[in-house]
């Protein structure tokens, strides 16, 4: 049989360390997602406002976040705030800040896109039916928006989970870093361990992201019929 060197994971507390690395990654992404989804909805709604100043401010915010690679944002927030402002943020806090900034911007843009994609006649028909503005939003516009948002935001959420692999650059030891540590510590005794360990890392990421995709598919189906 091909030697994948998976046995290195059963040495000492290696498997436990890998799983606690996964937990670190999960914590950072979960907290960031929980904060940035509602904020994103708010920002998205504000982006559709007619006021030009508001529009320009959010546009600039979105473009800056989008142009900057996440790695640069992590360095700016982790090291930059110490240099410029004297804050001594921990790596985890800096990561959450960056992921919230990023998630809010992207989610905001998704919400904006979903909102303006609702055809004008939906508003006009509701008005013709005698619905108030509030009723129009609650019964007509928001349900359709959410339906359009689900696949897009699931994509964003899984992307945020996977991007936590970058936080090792600011000293946060998450799953990928633990994997590298295990592989390197056994470099001499099992040189093939990279295959086995990264295979397990792949499976763990998959196990986390797959249920989210399944949930999304379920919700999509359910709301399509309704």
């Amino acid at each position: 049989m091909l030697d994948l060197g998976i046995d290195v994971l059963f040495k000492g507390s290696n498997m436990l360390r890998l799983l606690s690395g996964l937990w670190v990654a999960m914590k950072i992404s979960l907290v960031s997602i929980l904060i940035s989804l509602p904020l994103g909805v708010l920002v998205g709604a504000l982006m559709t406002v007619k006021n030009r100043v508001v529009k320009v401010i959010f546009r600039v915010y979105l473009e800056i976040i989008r142009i900057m690679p996440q790695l640069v944002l992590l360095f700016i927030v982790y090291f930059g705030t110490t240099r410029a402002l004297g804050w001594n943020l921990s790596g985890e806090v800096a990561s959450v800040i960056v992921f919230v900034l990023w998630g809010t911007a992207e989610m905001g843009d998704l919400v904006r896109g979903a909102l303006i994609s609702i055809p004008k006649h939906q508003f006009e028909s509701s008005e013709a039916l005698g619905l108030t503005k509030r009723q129009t939003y609650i019964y007509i516009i928001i349900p359709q928006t959410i339906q359009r948002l689900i696949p897009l935001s699931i994509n964003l959420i899984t992307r945020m989970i996977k991007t936590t692999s970058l936080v090792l650059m600011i000293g946060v030891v998450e799953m990928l870093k633990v994997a590298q540590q295990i592989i390197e510590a056994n470099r001499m005794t099992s040189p093939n361990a990279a295959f086995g360990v990264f295979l397990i890392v792949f499976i763990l990421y998959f196990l986390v992201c797959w249920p989210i995709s399944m949930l999304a598919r379920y919700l999509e189906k359910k709301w399509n019929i309704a």
Partner: protein
Amino acid sequence: MKNLKIKKLLAVAVAGILTVGLVACGSSNSDSAKSDTASGSDAASGSYRTLDEIKEDGTINIGVFSDKNPFGYVDENGEYQGYDVYFANRLAKDLGVKVNFVSTEAANRIEYLQTGKVDVILANFTVTEERAQEVDFALPYMNVALGVVSREDNVIKSLDNWNKDDSIIVISGTTAETYLTENYPDIPLQKFDSYATAKEAFQNGTSVAWANDNTEVIAFALQNKGYTVGISELGNKDTIAPAVTKGNDSLREWINSEIETLGQENFFHKDYEETLVDTYGTDYEDSLVVEGGKTE
């Protein structure tokens, strides 16, 4: 009309980014200026902690590699190990403080020191002129140079009078590649992107020799039968030393005196025997280790 709007937006965005950039650059300048003049007592302000402040706090933050076996790595029980870590533990012990290891990468070691997020970097940090402008190095504790490994039946001991039909294997982007290109332009090089492919090609006999960091070729010759290191020190001899934030003289001077004291008990030879001997054997102990901060 629409075009104009887009242009305006772009201008605003560019201005925003430039401001961010300027703030970042500006602060780094003022930062270095500050640490030159002021005592830089406050860690939170982005400068360093003096020796007394570390002692008072009771914990020293030391940046090490966590995935560079055998210099700095984490074992299966989650403990930091390796040549650098062994030294770090001793530093903390003699200072009478606890040690907090911070996992650093090659690319962020300087940044960690400049922001005061670690007090010392002990991450296989090679002393270079460019780096010495950004951080302060203490006395060295290890040597690095280039090495050339070849087959036992055709040992390469010198690169002079090279037979032009033979080539040398190098890994792209390493110091070995730069050095050979500059100093031996006539020697044909076979370049590979990764350690694994270079190793494979060398073992298949595509070249007579392989040039790399001497620690790497020594480890290779030790693990693979039929190969020997014909040239163990080639080119500029560099050293590896602890680094502290620029201007942190109290800590640097303490580390220097510590390294000198440790030299009397042959500490780094003991360190080598505890951590590196499995990888590099005993033959190269004296050429790799720098004891008491003194290079020949």
